[in-house]
């Protein structure tokens, strides 16, 4: 009850002045990896207009006193199914798989800005997300897109920004997976100077039942530097992936990488950024025998850029808890913040997002306490300079069931 009314008040009072807002005296984590400093942030329109101490403002600016509360860039999930999966166990609510397309499967047009996961994650500080296709038996699942989570039907984001795939313990031999992957990359290479129709007639393309969209996507991976996020865990598989990057000049990102500490020097030298679930220390398969809570620390200390996935769907904000655990086990605090913000924006070329720097887009979260503590919560969330409503189905249900009025719950609204 209290929760709801506070939220409502904040939105109401800020939206009237959305043109210019001064966040006064916040402990600002810029997302760049630099230590936090006490700063004022002036938001003008959709941008961060000015950052400094004791900024002066004109009379029309809405001032919010932060009294030292932590401020971070809006969190960016590098790997979600937001907007394309409502309920995992109900296929009719899922748009993350294709029966026909493979590498060229784009989920972009399936994105539902009204999906209940969006206000839930937004109210927990996630302001934008990369949404990727679900995994399949093919080594490339398809193309991920980037979405701004303001719930608008006028969908904002970037289409087909990365290829997602997997190599390792799953279907058949990993030797075959590697062979198919290489063959696909070879087809992609050919696409730079061969008409798509000709490639489709090649024996392998025919056998794999590839479509024109698949070839175009492969072309983007091999010839245009499209980020390719490859999930792999076993130490020797990570080395194979590094070799693939070198051979084909890929813009490779590795995910999961639970045995990375065993090949840390090679991984560092490769310059490959990684996406990890820092809480997953379970040897779930024989590929992950080296899994450990120290993964984040080892990668961070090697200077490798780290981003965070979450173990379970729907709660992408829990990368805060994951990165908090990584910090508890030795990762640097500011690297953890960077991993949820600027590192994602840089790796996937998301434009002027992911940092609190003058001139950048004002995706900003003000927290009630340390953002890496899972018990903390946003006080304000700004997307493109606009203060966001922090309600969700959960807050509505909470309000309904903590209301002690003596009438059926269906009349409490």
């Amino acid at each position: 009850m209290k929760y709801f009314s506070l939220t409502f008040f904040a939105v109401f009072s800020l939206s009237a002045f959305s043109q210019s807002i001064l966040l006064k005296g916040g402990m600002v984590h810029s997302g760049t990896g630099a230590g936090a400093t006490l700063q004022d942030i002036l938001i003008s329109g959709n941008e961060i207009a000015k950052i400094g101490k004791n900024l002066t403002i004109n009379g029309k600016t809405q001032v919010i006193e932060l009294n030292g509360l932590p401020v971070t860039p809006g969190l960016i999930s590098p790997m979600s199914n937001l907007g394309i999966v409502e309920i995992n166990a109900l296929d009719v609510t899922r748009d993350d798989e294709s029966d026909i397309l493979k590498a060229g499967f784009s989920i972009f047009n399936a994105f539902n800005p009204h999906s209940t996961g969006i206000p839930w994650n937004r109210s927990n500080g996630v302001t934008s997300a990369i949404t990727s296709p679900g995994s399949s038996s093919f080594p490339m699942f398809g193309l991920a897109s980037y979405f701004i989570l303001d719930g608008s039907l006028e969908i904002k984001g970037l289409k087909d920004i990365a290829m997602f795939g997997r190599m390792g313990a799953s279907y058949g031999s990993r030797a075959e997976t590697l062979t198919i992957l290489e063959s696909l990359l070879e087809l992609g290479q050919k696409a730079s100077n061969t008409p798509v129709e000709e490639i489709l007639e090649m024996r392998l393309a025919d056998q794999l039942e590839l479509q024109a969209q698949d070839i175009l996507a492969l072309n983007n991976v091999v010839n245009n530097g499209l980020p390719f996020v490859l999930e792999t865990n076993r130490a020797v598989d990570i080395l194979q992936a590094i070799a693939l990057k070198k051979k084909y000049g890929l813009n490779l990102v590795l995910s999961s990488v639970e045995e990375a500490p065993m090949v840390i020097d090679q991984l560092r030298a490769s310059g490959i950024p990684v996406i990890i679930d820092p809480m997953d220390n379970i040897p779930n398969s024989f590929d992950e025998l080296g899994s450990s809570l120290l993964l984040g620390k080892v990668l961070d200390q090697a200077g490798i850029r780290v981003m965070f996935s979450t173990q379970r769907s729907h709660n992408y904000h829990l990368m805060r808890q994951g990165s908090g655990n990584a910090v508890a086990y030795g990762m640097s605090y500011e690297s953890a913040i960077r991993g949820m913000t600027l590192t994602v924006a840089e790796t996937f070329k998301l434009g002027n997002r992911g940092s609190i720097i003058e001139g950048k887009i004002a995706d900003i979260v003000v927290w009630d306490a340390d953002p890496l503590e899972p018990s903390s919560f946003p006080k304000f969330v700004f997307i493109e300079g606009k203060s966001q409503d922090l309600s969700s189905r959960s807050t509505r249900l909470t309000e309904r069931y903590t209301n002690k009025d003596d009438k059926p719950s269906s009349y409490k609204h």
Partner: protein
Amino acid sequence: MKNILHLSALLLLIIGCSDMSTLPNLDLEDQKDYFASTYTPMDSEPTLFKSANIYDGLGGEFIGYDLLVADGKIIEVGQALSNSGVKVIDASDQWITPGIFDIHSHMGVYSAPGVSTSSDGNEATAPVTAEVWAEHSVWTQDPQFALALKGGVTSFHVLPGSANLFGGRGATFKNISQNTIQAMKFPDAPHSLKMACGENPKRVYGNRRQSPSTRMGNMAGYRSAWIDAMEYRDGMNERDADQRPTRDLAMDTLKGVLDGEILIQNHCYRAEEMAMMIEMSKEFDYKVTTFHHAVEAYKIADLLADEGICAAMWADWWGFKHEAYDMVPANIAIIDQARNGTGCAIVHSDDAVGIQHLNQEAAKAMAAGNRAGYSISKAHAMKWITSNPAKAAGVLEHTGSIEAGKDADIVLWTHNPFSVYARAQQVLIDGAVAYDMNDPKKQPVTDFDLGIINPKINRVQ
């Protein structure tokens, strides 16, 4: 000697000797000696933790107190306790809590690695499999036990899965890897019976074109089994042994519930289904101890408090199926606060990662509750992962709180356990150091972990 007698009595029963009535009364009491716990604590030394901050697991908070443990038991919490003749650990600025208790684990029955040959948690061959016991599936070398121990978990309750209406018996364990299942079993802990509502049983059997394929089919399945069980119990209570039915493992389990010896642990998400399960427990005169997962428990919080039924919940997991759609992060707090704070809330894991961080899950649930308008202290929220789950497993007289005379199952934390930065520095089980973050010799390494990547290096480091 006793076992031999039992065996001969059993054989007589099996061959149907007509002279049975003259034998000593064979009842199921005797069966309790089989598969019983052989757990014995590791060696320990009397230890005094000086100047610790203590959550006692019952809502109490003691700042700067000493804790004395000896002979595997908690001796005293006090100030300036005598340290003569005991090991002294300076615990200034650190926190001590009861050992964490997980009421919903599948460790050992869904071991890691999660390969098909280790999938031993669901006897999904018939909707009623009350005859199976989860402990008969447990793999003692599951590396997940040691990981949970590092998270402060000293005891856990292993349940069968939720594919079936009646999934089988659950059992409680002390978190010390041993080479036999009996040696890990919590002494004198009652069995539980796993029941499951909702989508899982109806999906598993509905997909095979057999009953149950609907929620009403689920209800019919449970009720039919209880009718059989009542008949079986009445038969077993016949004075004349000739009149007793042939022993039936599934019916033994259901009879144990009707006799109040086996506790019902009931997987159930939706409010109206939980209410229906309560109604059924009245129809057949047994008690539901705990609803598990209970994503909609907050909708019937007063009913659960009135009935004295606990709800074991996640802090925030949702959306993976339709019955887990109405998640509110204040669920745990709402259950806790129902009827003037008489509700019984538990944070459970059902997950090998989650079990390692139940303190963080409790922190999230507490914060969500306080955002919803409650005033729940950390000392109080500690109950959700200690005394309340111990109560739900029927072992609160032994563990789950820091009180004189209880098993010395305790955790010494580096920071306040409601912080993400807190790690278990030492974990004591019956007063013995089962885990010490600074002493590799006091960190368990299962056979699975030993030399598996490199003959010279153990997996867990």
